[in-house]
């Protein structure tokens, strides 16, 4: 067996999430690439939550509806996922909490009691059982569990082993050919990218699905001497504090989701006027309004590109997996500072909280590009109107510079003006950056092509849908096109990518086809839209069926 999909389900608060990750890590140590999809409702305990862990030889980022193994910690899990079972799906379940016709029951509660464990250790027990059932060596399981269960390690191992010994082997999973690699979520990848590019402060007001970044960086900050995290009173507080800090030279990113992002838009417009390089992570979820807070969506793209009064330029990027998230988050921070512009990193729940096998791309960030003012040159003017439109940077505390920032239209020195000529030239100064950034990002892969590059049928998609489209594209022999940078939009690349294409199918998680709208503006009409807006990402089998229809 060279690929496997495992679903583990139970009640919220029972550690399903952690268990999914543990299973992923074990399979990673077996040489597989991993992707984990997490599904949970907006509540803390009870309710049904599950993860699907998919392991594969090749790099992946999507899951199938049908699964190979079902790990059921309760009856609900057995009942709810009936539609995902194939003929040969193997079921392992807690026979103290549920009944199943097929599969192997494990008296988990009894085992826990015997070992003097606590309820939540039922997870470890079923993980142990899983390892045996699919033929994983105890050594590997033990190694991973030891490393990743910091509390009550020995007891957990005992319980896992008990589970391991309780069941008999069902199938034999091969050893994969990959080196074990880190298994990280999109949120973690974004965090690492920002760290890489020199982030010194992260600020956020908690909001799903971006909260993970705050938690991760707060934890990282305990040992990283140059990293602060802050949780201000509101999203407005967040962006304004961030802008103040950026003015003073701090490299800051902030993160939120749609509702909180709305509250930041006034500050975003300010950042453009004042030329303060802010980086905002916009984690999408099912909207409008509070919507389905723990489910996915892709309905904030046009909003992110056009929001804020004044029709100003911002860099917008929508990575599709953890690797892209890392690379483009780093670049977003870097570009923001080089061009003194706002950058928006769009993620979505699927990417943010899904887990991916991660191998960071090499990133060569050129700090010397940041236009720090050299005092020899001249008297400091924060908004010096140079040929490129880029002005020098200096920070308060600098003996030789007075730095005046202004949300009003202003002259080069930063003093308020209402003069029509200055207004015009300052508007043009800021507007120019659009072209500059366009040229700069052309150096990178702002758009990616996958699948069968010779097919005359193309799937056009964005964000976390990238991987499920690749899956479908490879199986159906279609071209797959993913723009990553959304503003400035890589229209030339897209036109190139579409050469020879006679049919475009646009795949998105929204009701209005926002990428389809965006490319329509550039003169490209998609032939068909496959849209999903029930909060759930496409599964590969579902998408393939839809495309075939």
């Amino acid at each position, binding site marked *: 067996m060279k690929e496997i999909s495992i679903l583990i389900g139970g009640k919220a608060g029972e550690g399903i999430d952690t268990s999914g990750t543990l299973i992923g890590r074990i399979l990673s140590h077996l040489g597989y690439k991993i992707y984990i999809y997490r599904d949970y409702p907006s509540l803390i305990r009870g309710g049904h939550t599950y993860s699907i862990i998919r392991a594969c030889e090749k790099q992946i980022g999507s899951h199938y509806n049908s699964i190979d193994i079902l790990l059921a910690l309760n009856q609900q899990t057995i009942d709810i996922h009936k539609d995902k079972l194939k003929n040969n799906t193997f079921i392992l379940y807690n026979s103290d909490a549920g009944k199943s016709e097929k599969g192997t029951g494990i008296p988990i509660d009894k085992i826990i009691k015997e070992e003097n464990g606590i309820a939540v250790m039922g997870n470890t027990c079923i993980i142990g059982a899983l390892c045996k059932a699919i033929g994983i060596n105890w050594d590997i399981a033990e190694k991973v569990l030891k490393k990743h269960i910091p509390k009550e390690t020995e007891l957990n191992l005992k319980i896992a082993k008990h589970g391991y010994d309780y069941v008999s082997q069902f199938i034999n999973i091969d050893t994969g050919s990959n080196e074990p690699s880190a298994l990280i979520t999109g949120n973690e990848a974004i965090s690492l990218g920002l760290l890489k590019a020199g982030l010194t402060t992260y600020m956020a007001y908690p909001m799903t699905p971006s909260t993970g970044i705050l938690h991760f960086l707060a934890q*990282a900050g305990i040992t990283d001497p140059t990293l602060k995290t802050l949780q201000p009173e509101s999203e407005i507080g967040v962006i304004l504090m961030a802008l103040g*800090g950026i003015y003073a030279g*701090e490299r800051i990113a902030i993160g939120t989701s749609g509702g909180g992002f709305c509250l930041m838009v006034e500050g975003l417009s300010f950042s453009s006027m004042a030329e303060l390089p802010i980086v905002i992570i916009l984690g999408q979820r099912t909207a409008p309004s509070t919507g389905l807070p723990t489910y996915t969506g892709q309905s904030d793209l046009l909003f992110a590109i056009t929001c804020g009064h004044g029709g100003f330029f911002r860099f917008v990027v929508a990575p599709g997996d953890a690797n892209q998230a890392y690379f483009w988050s780093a670049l977003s921070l870097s570009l923001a500072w080089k061009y003194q512009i706002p950058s928006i990193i769009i993620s979505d729940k699927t990417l943010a909280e899904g887990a991916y096998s991660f191998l960071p791309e090499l990133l060569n960030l050129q700090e010397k590009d940041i236009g720090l003012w050299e005092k020899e040159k001249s008297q400091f003017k924060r908004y010096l109107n140079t040929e490129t439109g880029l002005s020098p940077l200096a920070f308060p*505390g600098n003996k030789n510079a007075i730095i005046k920032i202004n949300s009003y239209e202003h002259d080069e020195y930063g003093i308020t003006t209402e003069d029509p000529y200055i207004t015009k030239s300052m508007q043009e100064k800021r507007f120019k950056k659009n072209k500059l950034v366009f040229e700069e990002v052309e150096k990178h892969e702002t758009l990616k092509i996958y699948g069968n590059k010779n097919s005359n049928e193309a799937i056009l998609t964005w964000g976390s849908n990238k991987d499920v489209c690749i899956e479908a594209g490879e199986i159906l022999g279609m071209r797959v096109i993913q723009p990553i940078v959304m503003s400035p939009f890589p229209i030339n690349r897209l036109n190139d990518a579409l050469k020879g294409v006679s049919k475009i199918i646009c795949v998105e998680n929204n009701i209005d086809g926002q990428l389809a709208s965006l490319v329509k503006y550039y003169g490209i009409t998609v032939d068909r839209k496959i849209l999903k807006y029930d909060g759930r990402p496409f599964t590969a089998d579902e998408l393939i069926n839809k495309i075939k229809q």
Partner: protein
Amino acid sequence: MIDIKNLDTYAKNTWCPGCGNFSILNSIKSVISELSGQIPIENFVIVSGIGCHAKIVDYINVNSFYSLHGRAVPAAEGIKIANPRLKVIVFAGDGDAYGEGLEHLIFAAKRNIDITVIVHNNRVYGLTVGQCTPTSPLGFKGKSTPAGTVEIPFNPLHLLLSSGATFIARGYTHGIDLLKDIFKQAVLHKGFSIVDTLQVCVSFYNMYDYYSKRVYTLKDHNIYDYQSALNKIKEWDYNTDSPISLGVFYKKETATFEENIVKNKNDVSGQRNISKIINERQEIIKKILASLT
């Protein structure tokens, strides 16, 4: 020490003749000038919201951050946290700080972050030509309330005392020596300081006569005693007639937010070697990834 004249900019002053803002401008300029002997002038940052008051940042030639309506305070906090060596002074309007941005003000006080907030409390929206604010008295007839307001104003100093502010004072734009003295104490206070300044708006709410009849300077008042401070603060409720005390009501010395947040006193923004940080991060990221494998 910087000569006060060197604090001028070329910006044309556009306040109404007779506006109380001039006193605030002159007072703070002399305070900055005096203090520039002990605090390097490049470490001053003045921050403002949007309103008549806010124009002050255009008129003083030091680092400045001309923010959004209601949002001067969080911007100032961000600046201070980034670089605790900076001396951050906020100029806010009453609409600005007590209306649109009240929440930020209360949280800044709660945190005891070391910034000074000077509120130009003219009890009216000046720049938008005369509407009521949270400190306009009951029955105030502004352009949006031609029949008079029905809301009782709150007492901003009382609110801030209960929010945890560690320096609370009231000034008045007539009597510049007292104003200077209060500003200076506020700026030198370690922790969050607020000066509610009764600023006469000659165009939309000229309270000159009203105030001048009632104000007096606090004497024999123990600024370190909470209950005395509370009593004095409550003497005038911003609505009914009573004597109006000027001066410092309350002062308390305690740890500040930025002291607790900033790990390394020498790692201040704007003086960092970002390339070095980026290099060091390589290792940190490697370690994190190892722990996630």
